[in-house]
Every structure is written in structure tokens, then in C-alpha cells.
């Protein structure tokens, strides 16, 4: 059957994402990182991932800014203190999502990280598969 997707809003012959309950937790970043060292901050959230896909959002309590981080390997809302390098890895278990941010100090002296609380929201979707 041929259809024109531009012209429809609801059409029962096209499936949609079914949104499940959001899971929320916080991850606190603080302290100092020695010269050449790396500090890793992580948080594991429990969520039913059986037959689901999740969007993971991070919101920085200092700036109020939010970003979708589950489709990007860059922790966009991280608030830099200096010229430290910030990378993230999001890993998935059967019933969990773990967000880990690694902060590397490539300068020749210790730096004090900007204290920041990151709110993590995991929105699971039931996939139409």
C-alpha cells in the first residue's frame, strides 16, 4: 500500500514509539585531578531494557542546560574548569544503563573540577519491532 507520510499525523497503519516511565538519578562531579591523571564519575540507573530503546538526557544543575547524550560520545553539558578533556561511555545491561564520564587533566599541574550535579533521565521506549 502506498501512502503520503507528509500529510498525516495519526495513521494506525504506521507504528509509533510507546513511551515508558522515565527513570531519574543524579551524578555528582567534584574534587581535583592531578597532572596527567584521569578521574571517572559514573552512575548506573535501573531500567527495564527488555525490547526497549532508551533516550538518555543529562541536565547540568549549574547551567540548567540539557542534552541528549545517548546518541553522542560527547558529554555536551559538562562544565569545564580548565582545559581538561571530557569523554563519556554509556554501557547497557539487561536492566540497567550506566553513564561514565572520564575527565583527564593534560596540564602540568592539578586542577580543581567545577563542582556540578548532573541529573540523568532515562526515557525507555517500546520499539514497534
Amino acid at each position, binding site marked *: *500500500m*502506498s*501512502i*503520503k*507520510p*507528509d*500529510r*498525516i*499525523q*495519526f*495513521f*494506525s*497503519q*504506521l*507504528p*509509533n*514509539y*510507546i*513511551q*515508558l516511565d522515565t527513570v531519574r538519578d543524579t551524578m555528582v562531579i567534584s574534587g581535583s585531578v592531578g597532572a596527567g591523571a584521569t578521574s571517572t564519575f559514573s552512575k548506573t540507573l535501573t531500567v527495564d*531494557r527488555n525490547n526497549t*530503546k*532508551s*533516550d*538518555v*538526557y543529562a*541536565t547540568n544543575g549549574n547551567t*540548567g*542546560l*540539557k*542534552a*541528549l*547524550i*545517548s*546518541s*553522542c*560520545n*560527547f558529554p*555536551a*553539558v559538562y562544565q569545564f574548569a580548565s582545559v581538561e*578533556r571530557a*569523554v*563519556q*561511555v*554509556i*554501557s*547497557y*545491561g*539487561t536492566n540497567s544503563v550506566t553513564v561514565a564520564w572520564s575527565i583527564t587533566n593534560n596540564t602540568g599541574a592539578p586542577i580543581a573540577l567545577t563542582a556540578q550535579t548532573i541529573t540523568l533521565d532515562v*526515557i525507555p*521506549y*517500546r*520499539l*514497534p*519491532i
Partner: protein
Amino acid sequence: MSFLDPQNAALATAYLVDKVVGIYRDSYAPGVGTSVLGGYLYQKAIPHPFGRPVFAELSWSKDGSSYFDGGSNVSAATSGAIAYSDSSNIYITTLENTGTIYYKLVCSWIDDYDTTEPSITPVLNTASGLYFDSRKNYPKIDRHGVTTISGTGTKAITHGLGYAPGFKGYFESISGQVWPLIAGGTSDVWLYDFVNQMECYALIGTTDVTLNFTGPASSRRVWYRTYLA
């Protein structure tokens, strides 16, 4: 009619929803029939019949049971997968080149891709009989559109909701290819072509979404959707 609390409405015709036009589920051996990007990314092309790119959301697995989201790394620079599309194919790109890759792709229509309203034949999974369930909520699109970026800089998209909504963006990291947002410079494993490829990430505020981009001077399009939180 006014909608005082649209978040509580499971189905509301005042709001657009993601229109799923393609569902693909299969597996392949990444070392067989794949092309190599940048010497380290292994790419599988999956032909689609839509005639223009679609938003491709990927779930993938190495064992067929534990699935990971596309785009996000599982293990730094050693394990990950991402999907993007052009007018002919959906591409699954992985850091893996051995074993088996299992994938689930859900592709949604881009209303703002161009001004045509083509007729298409959806590629749907006949095993899934449940398309709408009024007992559950749905991601409701508050606004959607397309904007252009070039070079390095920022660009604001105003939403005016008074809170930070959900936001998804897709962009032409390479002209003609529609990618999910990627960023990170030298830390970005999906950035394999430092000359032609653009990076873009989005910061969501209470009135605007700010696109931050780095790349070549040629104009690239960004398609976006904000969702009621």
C-alpha cells in the same frame, strides 16, 4: 479547544508524532560485504525504498540478546555502532569487524526534508500488531523544522516552552547523508573524515536549543524535533 495538560494525554491530534516508515531486523558478519571508512569503521549498506533519507534509530547487539543503543559507545574506542542514511541506503557503521552484528532499525519520516510529498510503501514488521496503545504515552512533537549550519559556530533554535524539552537532531555530517548528532573532535570515533565531515551537538535550554558545530565551510542541513517533556 485548549489543551491544559497535554503531557497527560496519550494521544492528542494537536501534536505530531514520529512516523515510523521502516523497521528492519536482521544480522550480518561485519567482515563480509562491508566497506571500510577511515581504515577502522566497518560499514554495512541496507537498501531502502524511500527515495530520500530517513531518521534511522539503531539498536544493536553482538550476541542477539543484549542490545545497545546506536551512536553511543559501549567501550571507548573499541566497541560501538551508529546508523545513518542517504537516499538509497541505511548504513550501519561499527568498530567491530569480527563476529556477528544483530540489529534493529526503526526509521521515521523527515517531513521537512524537502517540499515534495512522495508516496511510499512502508517497510513494516508484520509480526508486530500493536501500533497504538491508548494506555501508554507517546513522544509528542512540539515543533519540528530544518535549519542550515556551516563552518564553526553556534545557532539557536527557539522553542519558547519555558522548560528544557526533549530534543532530537539529525544533520548532514557529510552532504547527502543524514546522521544523528555526533561530537567530540579527536575523541569522536565516528569522525573519520576530518576534511569533509561536520560535527554538531545540541544544548537544550528553557527557551532555545543551541546547536554547536564544527566542520567545513559548505552549508549543511540540520533537522530537529522538540518533544514535550
